């Protein structure tokens, strides 16, 4: 220490100029003329809407992936002071001058550019030489498809960037066994894994690969009996398992914090979730009485989100006497489920033993197990069911608004309230929170949304039936009170006026973050869009031969256009090297099994590591798509392709140093490689510089 103090403090930095050069080139290819074309390109039309919604803080659901990628793009928009006022309705629409296209596209492009130096470093970390590193980065640099994909508001470049960071930092961690600093790398690796998964679910594949490699390394560590390994194992588990999960949840926390206003996708969520959004259901439900009581006026929303969210409804029209197929009906008033707010959605809860339709003072709350009648607000018909086949689902009972035709068909209008989430919430019927089943007292059938549309006589509304044989946990059986007020008017005329008036208002219902997170995540995984074939969709096997391309944009008047298509040369090289690696590995393995060790152990370990990362990475990012049934595009293959670009130069180097050593031929290719190698070696060290700091 004393010696150091006497000297001036010297900081020596070596800068790899090749690395700087490829980085500059990468930035140039990815960032130059970023704002042209000044029009919506391909999926920008899709992601753009979400950016706008972020700017306006409006809640949305995107079932294609978690929110981090969208948020990063929104960050670009925020920095470019985009106000969200642009309608993303068609590909090719011109951006107005108020939209800063450059800043919208900046962050994906920067991430795309950074992938190039990352690949360079990654090759070095796999213990291959600088020349191979240059080769890998050049392949990535000149890959047309990656350039195209990086230059627009698309998610793939972000995904690839985070995946590469995760891999690089893990290898850094693994290759420096004796420094405390390595745990920072491990932490970084876990964090980037979370980011990759947060951008697209596809990131899970690479994450699993990394966890697999890490657990293999940990397993070897456990086998080392000279060490006490508990702390190390726990550290790894925390960094690679716990941290990513927490961060993943954190993305959702940000997402839900940012988006607090109601919007177009509200109806997919539960009433409680909607009530927590500003201006959505909360505008209506604020100040509603909480306890549903006798005399309450309510709207009943079906818990099923399939096929469409809707409310129990009735109107002044009867079931036809005979259906088209000749079956008869009761000819009583139709009861349906209607997907829009309407005054005919109001029902009044009535005590079977009393005549009043107003709430007494104090209100008498309805509890689990109570028997009630439901009166339709506008027509005063009682909700009724009987042993008549339902119009579209003949195995179930018809549900009707009861009309007494004097045909010895007595009213069967008693319903028992069965609160299915009473353990979690409460025994008494609460607005929004309680999910109830209405069990028909006479037949013990349950009121159910069948999900089938009625024909024209039913105005194409959804059919409601009473079902005797039902699956235990079907959301189509549950109903929630959404709008609610205490009825005050005894006369029918007054009551109609009351139903037409807006509901009155007061308190806000809070929902915990975890409940919101779980509901949102569940909805994202289960909401299915209509899967239809797209004009440019392709099947996974076509990717290898690059049979299809995607037209991203076409100028409205000239022939200027942008296509997503790979560089055929690098594409071919990539797949050839994949094949070569597999053949080589098979030969090595068979020979080793017979006791012939072609490679020294260190080199063999390097070769295996290369295979695990690159071929393994390709496999996990490609094979799952073969099993998927969703619509796929060429850009889904890009992450897998990056792994192959990493593989090719390294494999070439391996072949050169370990296979061609035995044959003393110099193929032209090898000569070429050696030539440029010497040049580059000279380049590499030439311009390192020293920076001097002088202490006082």
């Amino acid at each position: 220490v004393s010696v150091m103090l006497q000297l001036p403090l010297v900081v020596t930095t070596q800068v790899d100029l090749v690395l700087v050069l490829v980085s500059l080139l990468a930035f140039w290819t990815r960032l130059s003329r970023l704002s042209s074309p000044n029009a919506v390109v391909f999926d920008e039309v899709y992601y753009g809407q979400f950016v706008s919604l972020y700017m306006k803080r409006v809640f949305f659901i995107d079932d294609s992936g978690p929110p981090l990628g969208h948020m990063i793009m929104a960050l670009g928009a925020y920095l470019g002071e985009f106000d969200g006022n642009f309608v993303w309705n068609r590909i090719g629409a011109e951006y107005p001058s108020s939209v800063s296209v450059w800043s919208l596209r900046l962050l994906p492009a920067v991430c795309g550019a950074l992938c190039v130096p990352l690949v360079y470093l990654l090759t070095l970390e796999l213990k291959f030489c600088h020349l191979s590193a240059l080769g890998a980065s050049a392949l990535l640099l000149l890959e047309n498809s990656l350039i195209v994909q990086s230059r627009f508001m698309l998610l793939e470049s972000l995904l690839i960037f985070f995946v590469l960071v995760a891999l690089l930092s893990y290898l850094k961690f693994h290759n420096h066994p004796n420094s405390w600093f390595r745990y920072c790398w491990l932490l970084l690796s876990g964090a980037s894994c979370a980011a990759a998964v947060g951008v697209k679910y596809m990131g899970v594949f690479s994450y699993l690969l990394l966890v697999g490699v890490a657990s293999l390394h940990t397993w070897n560590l456990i086998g080392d009996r000279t060490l006490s390994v508990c702390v190390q194992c726990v550290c790894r588990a925390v960094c690679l398992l716990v941290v990513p999960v927490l961060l993943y949840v954190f993305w959702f926390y940000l997402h839900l914090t940012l988006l607090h206003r109601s919007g177009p996708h509200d109806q997919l969520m539960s009433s409680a979730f909607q009530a927590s959004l500003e201006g959505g259901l909360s505008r209506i439900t604020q100040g509603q009485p909480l306890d549903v009581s006798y005399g309450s006026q309510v709207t009943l929303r079906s818990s099923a989100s399939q096929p469409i969210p809707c409310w129990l409804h009735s109107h002044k029209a009867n079931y036809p006497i005979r259906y088209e197929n000749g079956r008869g009906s009761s000819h009583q008033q139709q009861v349906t489920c209607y997907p829009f707010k309407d005054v005919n959605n109001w029902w009044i809860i009535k005590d079977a033993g009393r005549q009043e339709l107003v709430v007494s003072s104090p209100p008498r709350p309805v509890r689990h197990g109570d028997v009630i009648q439901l009166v339709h607000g506008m027509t005063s018909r009682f909700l009724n069911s009987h042993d008549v086949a339902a119009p579209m689902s003949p195995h179930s009972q018809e549900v009707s608004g009861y009309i007494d035709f004097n045909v010895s068909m007595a009213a069967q209008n008693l319903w028992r309230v069965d609160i299915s989430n009473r353990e979690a919430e409460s025994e008494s019927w609460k607005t929004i929170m309680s999910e109830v089943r209405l069990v028909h007292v006479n037949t013990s059938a349950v009121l159910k949304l069948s999900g089938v549309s009625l024909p024209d006589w039913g105005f194409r509304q959804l059919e409601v039936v009473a079902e005797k044989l039902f699956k235990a946990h079907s959301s189509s059986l549950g109903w929630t009170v959404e709008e609610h007020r205490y009825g005050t008017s005894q006369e029918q005329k007054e009551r109609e006026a009351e139903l037409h008036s807006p509901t009155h208002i007061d308190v806000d219902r809070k929902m915990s973050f975890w409940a919101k997170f779980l509901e949102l995540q569940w909805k994202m995984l289960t909401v299915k869009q209509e899967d239809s074939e797209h004009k440019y969709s392709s099947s996974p096997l076509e990717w290898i031969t690059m049979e299809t391309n995607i037209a991203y944009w076409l100028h409205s008047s000239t022939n200027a256009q942008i296509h997503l298509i790979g560089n055929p040369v690098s594409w071919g090289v990539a797949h050839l090297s994949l094949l070569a690696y597999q053949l080589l590995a098979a030969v090595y393995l068979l020979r080793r099994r017979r006791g012939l060790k072609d490679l020294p152990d260190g080199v063999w370990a390097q070769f295996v590591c290369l295979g695990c990362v690159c071929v393994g990475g390709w496999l996990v990012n490609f094979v799952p798509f073969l099993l998927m049934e969703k619509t796929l595009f060429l850009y889904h293959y890009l992450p897998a392709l990056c792994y192959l670009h990493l593989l090719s130069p390294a494999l070439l180097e391996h072949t050169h140093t370990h296979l061609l050593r035995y044959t003393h031929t110099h193929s032209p290719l090898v000569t070429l490689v050696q030539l440029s190698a010497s040049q580059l070696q000279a380049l590499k060290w030439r311009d390192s510089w020293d920076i001097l700091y002088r202490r006082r």
Partner: protein
Amino acid sequence: TTSPSTGDTSTLRHRRTVPTSSETLQTLSEDRRSQTAELDDTQSSNGTSAHFSPGGHFSQDPQSSRVVLMLVAGLCFATRLYKITEPPHVCWDETHFGKMGSYYINRTFFFDVHPPLAKMLIGLAGYMTGYDGTFPFGKPGDKYEHHNYWGMRGLCAVLGSFLPIFAYVIVQDLSRSYTAALITATLLIFDTGCITISQYILLDPILLFFIMAAVLSMVKFNLQRFRPFTSYWWLWLVLTGVNLAGALGVKFVGLFVILLVGLNTVWDLWRILGDLSLSLVEISKHFLARVVGLILVPLFLYVTIFAVHFVVLNKSGPGDGFFSSAFQSRLIGNNLHNASMPEYLAYGSTITVKNLRIAGGYLHSHWHLYPEGVGARQQQVTAYLHKDYNNVWLVHKQDNNASDLVRHGDIIRLEHKETTRNLHGHLHEAPLTKKHFQVTGYGINGTGDTNDLWQVEVCGGQKGDVVKVLRSKIRFLHRATGCVLYSSGKTLPKWGWEQVEVTCSPYLKETPSSQWNIEDHINPKLPNISLSVLKPHFLEILLESHIVMIRGNSGLKPKDNEMNSKPWHWPINYQGLRFSGVNDTEYRVYLLGNPVVWWMNLASLGLYPIMVAVASITLQRGFSLEHSLVLMREGGLLLLGWLLHYAPFYTMGRVLYFHHYFPAMLFSSMLTGITFDVLLKSTDLLLRPPYSDWLQRLGQMVLLFSVLYSFYLFHPLSYGMTGPLAHEPGSAMAGQKWMDSWEF
């Protein structure tokens, strides 16, 4: 070690100390050795009571092991054959498979998505026991009355009875533990699901029989590994191959057991390759022997099964339309058998047009429009696999109707005979294949527009060539847009009656999907000429029938309204299948696993990974627990079998049923046997000898009696119940509806 005081606290303390000190381990294993010696003594004095309790230890003398095996076999046959003729009406899928058995007796050709072996066996069993093939098997619930149906059910029940026996032998050979084998046998014998599925005319008992027999032969073959090329070695090798062919010949699910045997063989070969004492010649001998035994023999048998199938079924039947024109000409009674019709396609003829893609279907139209939002709202044109009057089309010249031959390059109009609409194409997206154009029926009484014109092109022909009926491959090029009439093979949704989509493809590459042939051809003005159509080669028939089966399989999509079973339902026994009866007056049989057995299996699936993790970590840290090798190696094989028979269902798009889980369930039960056995034997890690032994015995007894008692509770599910449903008062099964989703 610490003193074995009472209760669990001491066991916990024990668990923590044991793996860290090798000294303790040594003393413990010494303790055990003396303890087992003691046990053997008590065993021999105990004598007969041991036979009754599967929990007991058996000394490994052949006498007692034979007695146990006989006992297991007796129980198997007794439980499976009891009440075999009840109920005397058609249950569930008997309506299909019984019917197919009858087809073999009647020699009528039919189409099914499964390979033919099981149905041939069913047919044979029926034939041998005097069933004459006249019962129509119309729908579930039809009474058999005087028809002899017990033979067919008996075959399935006998094959089903072998399952627990095979499982017993497999587990015994794998683990060398009688208790493990007995646990497995108990689980399977008293599982209501296994009993129910074995008692009816179904493919599953036969499939399960072959799967288990294949696994058994594979295990026996593995045991012979140190005596290669002996006669027993060859016997088990060839038997493995035979059973694999059997499994695949029953259902394509047999592929999974082939995969299991394949992986096992690869592993075995890898081991042999690493044995440096063997020369390369010997290794290639090993390799070739397996190629013969496990590839060539099964392949030969499998092909033979199909050969028999085609030879037996030589009469036209309900399955004809699924196959190509050439195939149909083989069948007696089909209109293409020794067909006689005008040889060349002419104007004014009435024709049917068949797509050349295998299982391509006939060009079809009907009185239904494309729904709103799907192209233009005009009449649907589809491809339909069955013979139907809506497949008939009239050939018109562009302008007039002169009877003349159609030639390559001619422009024609095709009029749908039933609806008098013309085959019409236009620049709208096709319903499913968005890159293609829509094809519709358009116009009234044959008058339409220029979009109704199609140019006929004989593949490989020149201008002026005539179109040969049946033999020419022709294409229809749309005049206005230049696209070609195409059958995409995708199934339309409900609005299209689940028929196959027909489009007009702008890609003009010649593929079977865009090629058609003329099948029926009626023209009164032309003389009929007897056509000796090329008889197809056997291999062509084989290939064609396979592609048709695979298409049929993937075409079994779940319907929207139908109750749909999901793979995750299965291991938890979430929901069964109604075999017979719905109302309280009927005789009801419900396929549902014995919940105790199935939940034990579920528990062991959770327990097994934990035990393996503990065992392998201790091994990696240098200590070896006693049973860890059996647990890891043999248990691993069974776990792999379970995975291979279960996991693939998650990726399947076709409709799934509860009974698809049974192969996996057998593997899971065998794994349970080994897991619980090792778990109980590991009690000596926690307690001192006499106490650990008591605990072990206690565990075995609890296991046995819980299985027996639950069988007593749930046996009406298999053997039939009448009276009120379980959720109503007064039912025999009252209080046993443990899950709301069970429907008995």
